[in-house]
């Protein structure tokens, strides 16, 4: 090893930004992705909820409209869409996503941050995130309806069949179930609130359930994005069938 001459000199300013060593992606990419993806989905969902008729083409029913409730001129999705909306808004993963990207609290780790007063989740409106479990309960009911719809989607007028829509609806409900049952509030309910996993028969059973939920919970963010994508894709597909733009490829026994 060649020992170089000791040289020390002052440098004017730091020329480099914050480099997250655990990621090859630039700091701005994640918040930018979240803003774009959630804005697109939000705009599409508003349009469906307020301006679209029932998304039903035999035997497919849009996830926005399940269960299908038609009362007068009120758009059917209004009765349904609030539950998954509130669930995702108060979801522990989406909290990270929107606090980082829409509010810059913080945009990315160790970067400068807007000096705005910050109360976190201690004040209105974010204190309501503490009620996440109730949104979970409502969403479980909705996922139940979606399972029912997914089964019906294989019933073509009394004959078993498989269409592209059936596969899409099944994939959607699988991903939604993975997302919903990986919820942190459910992980707590399943067994996380126990101090002792081994102290009773019930505790041991709940520990097994907790471990299962934990497996889904580890990648909660992936489940969240994948299911958001399939919800939109399923609805778009059904509305394109409804408009006669697409023809559903299917096989019926």
């Amino acid at each position, binding site marked *: 090893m060649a020992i170089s001459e000791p040289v020390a000199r002052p440098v004017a300013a730091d020329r480099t930004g*914050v*480099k997250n060593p655990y990621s090859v992606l630039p700091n701005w990419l994640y918040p930018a992705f979240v803003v774009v993806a959630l804005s697109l989905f939000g705009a599409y969902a508003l349009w469906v909820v307020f301006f679209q008729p029932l998304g039903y083409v035999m035997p497919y029913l849009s996830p926005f409209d399940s269960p299908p409730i038609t009362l007068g001129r009120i758009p059917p999705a209004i009765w349904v869409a609030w539950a998954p909306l509130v669930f995702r808004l108060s979801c522990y993963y989406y909290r990270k996503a929107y606090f*980082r990207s829409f509010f810059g609290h913080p945009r990315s780790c*160790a970067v400068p941050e807007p000096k705005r007063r910050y109360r976190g989740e201690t004040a209105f409106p974010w204190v309501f995130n503490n009620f996440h479990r109730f949104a979970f309960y409502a969403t479980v009911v909705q996922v139940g309806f979606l399972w029912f719809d997914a089964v019906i989607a294989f019933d073509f007028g009394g004959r078993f069949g498989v269409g592209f829509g059936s596969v899409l609806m099944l994939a959607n409900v699988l991903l939604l179930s993975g997302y919903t049952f990986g919820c942190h509030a459910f992980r707590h309910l399943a067994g*996380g609130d126990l*101090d002792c*996993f*081994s102290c009773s028969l019930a505790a041991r059973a709940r520990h097994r359930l907790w471990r299962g939920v934990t497996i889904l919970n580890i990648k909660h963010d992936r489940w969240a994005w994948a299911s958001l994508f399939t919800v939109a894709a399923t609805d778009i597909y059904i509305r394109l069938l409804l408009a006669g733009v697409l023809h559903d490829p299917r096989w019926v026994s």
Partner: protein
Amino acid sequence: MADSDLDLRIWRGDAKGGELVSYRVPVTEGMVVLDAVLWAQANMASDMAVRWNCKAAKCGSCSAEIQGFPRLMCKTPIADYGDHVTVRPMRAFPLIKDLVTDVSWNYEVNKQIPPFTPSEKDMNTSEPWRMQQKDVDRVMEFRKCIECFLCQDVCHVLRNHDGKSNFYGPRFMVRIAALEMHPKDSLDRRPLLKGNAGLGYCNVTKCCTEVCPEHIKITDNAIIPLKERMDDAYFDPVRALIRRIGGGRKPKAV
């Protein structure tokens, strides 16, 4: 500059002010940032203040901000950065000198957390305590903490919003989780979490988890489960009703 030389920029100064100083350091194979800093200290700047101890990522002394990001100097290969790297002291704590900060606030916070307290019955038994592996596993993760305070440094509540009077910070959520989830502990720290510990200030943005050198899933396994426990006590009318009728754990002050 030769290929094998590193342009190492270190922040030099004290609370009154300072500047980045560049040191030319010869790179050897497998070198970590702490090696380079110590080489500069030995050969060029004997008055440079740097805190370190184990050089094995186990004592938690050598925390600093490397290229702006909180890391342990002794665990960070030079190879991660190429031919120049900037090292600064942690920003969330008052500076003493050069790379050394005053982290004593953390020890004051620690004293406010009621320690492990077994029940009367467990205290007075002559039997050895038995704990099942499944109960050990969950709290073991939290016991890995080396108190490097990198998570405290990166947490935006403490770092950017001057939240030291509002929030204990992720390190102490880890400690409280270890106590609360211990089968033999009898205290209820949920009132503390809602009150002085300021759990509500955390918005689960996960930077603490990103920096933890012990890979503790601080947010998923400590903070969020504690938020859920706090919600049981303060934000769940259904559980409140059940408590009224007679079941369930009531939050009691510690």
